[in-house]
Each structure stands twice: as structure tokens, then as C-alpha cells.
């Protein structure tokens, strides 16, 4: 083999070899295990902390409230729809209780009159006419809205 060709081939193989070495060193672990991505990223996505605990967890302590809710119109509304968590779900919720004030603005999120909400089974109210200056929970029990409180 002429010296020139040998050198050319050698250089070529060195380049290919260096390319493969670099590629191997910069490709992260587990890349390509299931597809063109880092398989460990699935675990990274799984490891994120959660906030919402789910109704079953709330019921462990608040069975009485759950039973009351189940007996009235808000039965399909889950606890955390209103009681939005303030701390991650792995911490006891007593650390920062998810208390809701039950103001008109809060209840109006679902119950304010809106043309897009009609005929969906959710009562619609004009809060200007319906006790403008009171909080809803002064009369209604939010867990059983038709159990009106006496004043």
C-alpha cells in the first residue's frame, strides 16, 4: 500500500474513532433505551412533589363533612375544588389549613350568572340582587347548600 493512501486511511479511521468516542461521552445515560430520549427523564417527571391529595385522603379525617356533603347538592364537588391545598400533599394539612372564606367572589366563580353557564345544572345568581352585602356562608352551609342557617 502506498504510504499516502495508508496515511489517508489512518487519518480517516482516527476521525471516525474520535467521533465515536466524543459521541459516546456526551450521550447521557439511558438515552435511547425506549426511544430518542433520556429514559431516566421518566423518573425525573415522576419524582415531582404533588399538592392535591385526593378526596379519599381528606375523608380519612373528615368523614363527617364528607357524609354531609354527600347528602346535598354539592355531592359531586370534590373537597379540593374549593379547599385548594397550600402546601405539598406529603405534609399534614394541619400545618397550613386550606381554609376558604366563602365570600361572594369565591362562590361567584361557579354561581355568577353567565350565558355560557346556563342549562348546566349549576344554579346561576345575580349577586347584585341576591344579598349583595353578605358572605354566602352566613346563610348557606357550603357542604350542604340547602341547609340554611337561621339568623
Amino acid at each position, binding site marked *: 500500500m502506498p504510504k499516502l493512501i495508508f496515511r489517508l486511511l489512518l487519518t480517516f479511521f482516527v476521525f471516525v474513532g474520535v467521533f465515536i468516542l466524543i459521541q459516546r461521552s456526551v450521550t447521557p445515560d439511558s438515552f435511547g433505551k*425506549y426511544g430518542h430520549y433520556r429514559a431516566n427523564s421518566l423518573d425525573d417527571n415522576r419524582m415531582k412533589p404533588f399538592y392535591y391529595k385526593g378526596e379519599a385522603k381528606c375523608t380519612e379525617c373528615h368523614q363527617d363533612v364528607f357524609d354531609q356533603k354527600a347528602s346535598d347538592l354539592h355531592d359531586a364537588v370534590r373537597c379540593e375544588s374549593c379547599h385548594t391545598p397550600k402546601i405539598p400533599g406529603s405534609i399534614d394539612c394541619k400545618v397550613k389549613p386550606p381554609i376558604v372564606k366563602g365570600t361572594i367572589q369565591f362562590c361567584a366563580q361557579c354561581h355568577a350568572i*353567565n*350565558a355560557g353557564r346556563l342549562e348546566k345544572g349549576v344554579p346561576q345568581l345575580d349577586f347584585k340582587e341576591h344579598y349583595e352585602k353578605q358572605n354566602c356562608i352566613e346563610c348557606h352551609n357550603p357542604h350542604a347548600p340547602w341547609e340554611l342557617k337561621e339568623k
Partner: protein
Amino acid sequence: MGTERKINNRRKFFQTSAALVGGTLLYSLIKPFEALSQSKEEATKIAKEDLPLWGMGVDLERCVGCGKCAEACKIENNVPKEPFYFRTWVEQYTVKKDGEVKIESPNGGIGGLKQSVPDEDIFKSFMVPKLCNHCTKAPCVQACPVGATFISPDGVVLVDDTYCIGCSYCIQACPYGARFMNPVTKVADKCTFCYHRITKGLLPACVEACPTDARIFGDLRNKESDLVKFLQENPTQVLKPHLNTHSRVFYNGLSSEVK
């Protein structure tokens, strides 16, 4: 003597480099076969039929536009509170009597949507919750130059936030506008169906928070799941079917005005 040493050195150098390159090449030749011998093991580990295939149904006949889902999503996934970063949001479509369609979504619907058109002008009005459609043929996955966004074996489009380079090609590629650049992490961010929750057996935060059960989440492969039941009972549609993305978010009661 000096020249001899030089030659010897050069010979040694060539020998070692040839050995190095030869070894690497040999290894790269063996490697594919190695994968063949291992693939059986992996195949059992990740048999697709045993995995769930996650999807979501959205019942527009039930959505009241309270924005609880958008709020819950922000809490659950630490999405910045500014009103232009959303993984999921609710739009209110109002078709006026003169045919004009008004689409609004102030703060993504958080705090409850309010109708801005006077009642006498309205022909019809409805709410449309939007989120990542978790396409089977996802344009964002095709656009990603580094493989930082991908479809997981259980059918969820995820972002690898340690590997994303923040080029925002995927944000441009998404036909549903479901992605955004997270100003804190500086990488692309999107709905993950709350992957950290569904793999623990919990429901996604938006489904958990919905007071009217307008969102139905479940496994498309499990014939007894709520989602399959929802699909059987209702005539559903996906958004932008002409784009052939084969999305896995199904809408019941979708009007033709929805884009």
C-alpha cells in the same frame, strides 16, 4: 541516535493510536449485537399492552368556566402566576347574533369567567377548557432537535427539563399553543397529565379540582375505565383533526367555532 529515537516514538504513537481506534471500532461493531441480546429483557420490561394509555375527555356540556382547573394546575405544577403562563386554561366562546365570534380567556379563566357581551347580543356562549392534546404524532416531538421532548411509553408527551436547550422550536411547532417557555427554569413547559400523580394512582390536579366532572381522565386501553365509557356514551371530537396529530384529548359537544 536522535533520529532513531524519533522514529521509535513515532512508531509507538501510531501503534497506540491504531490500537485505540481499532478497539473503539471493534466495540462499536459488537455494540448493536449486544443490544440484540438485551432487547428481550427490555421488551419484557416495557410490554406496551400492559402499560396504560392515558387520555382525557372534556365534556363541554358540563363545563361552567369556573377556572378551578387552571388554578389547580398552577398550584400543582408550580407554574408562574403571571397571566400568560398556562398548562391548561379555559376559553369562553361567545357567538353574537351578527355572527361574530368572540374568544376570551382573562387570566386563563382563573377566578371564574365573566361574560363581557350584553345578553341581548348573544346567540350562544360556551366554555372550552384547553390543554396539551398529547398527540400520538406530536409535532413538538418531531421539532425538538435534541430529544428533550418525547412520548412516554404510556402515551404522555413529556419534557426532559434537564436536557432541554430552550430553543423554543416545540413552542412554535405546537398547533394548539399548549407550550410556553418557563421564565424560571428557562426551558419549555407543558401539561404532563400530572405525570407525577397518575403514576402514583392519583388523578391529574385539574380533574381532581373540577367541580362538575367536566374532565374525565383514564386509560384508553382499559375497556372499563371512565374515559372509555365516556367515549362510548358521547359523540366526541378532537381539536384540529385535519392536522392528523391523533390527539388523545376528546371533546364532547364541540362547536365548529372552536379553533
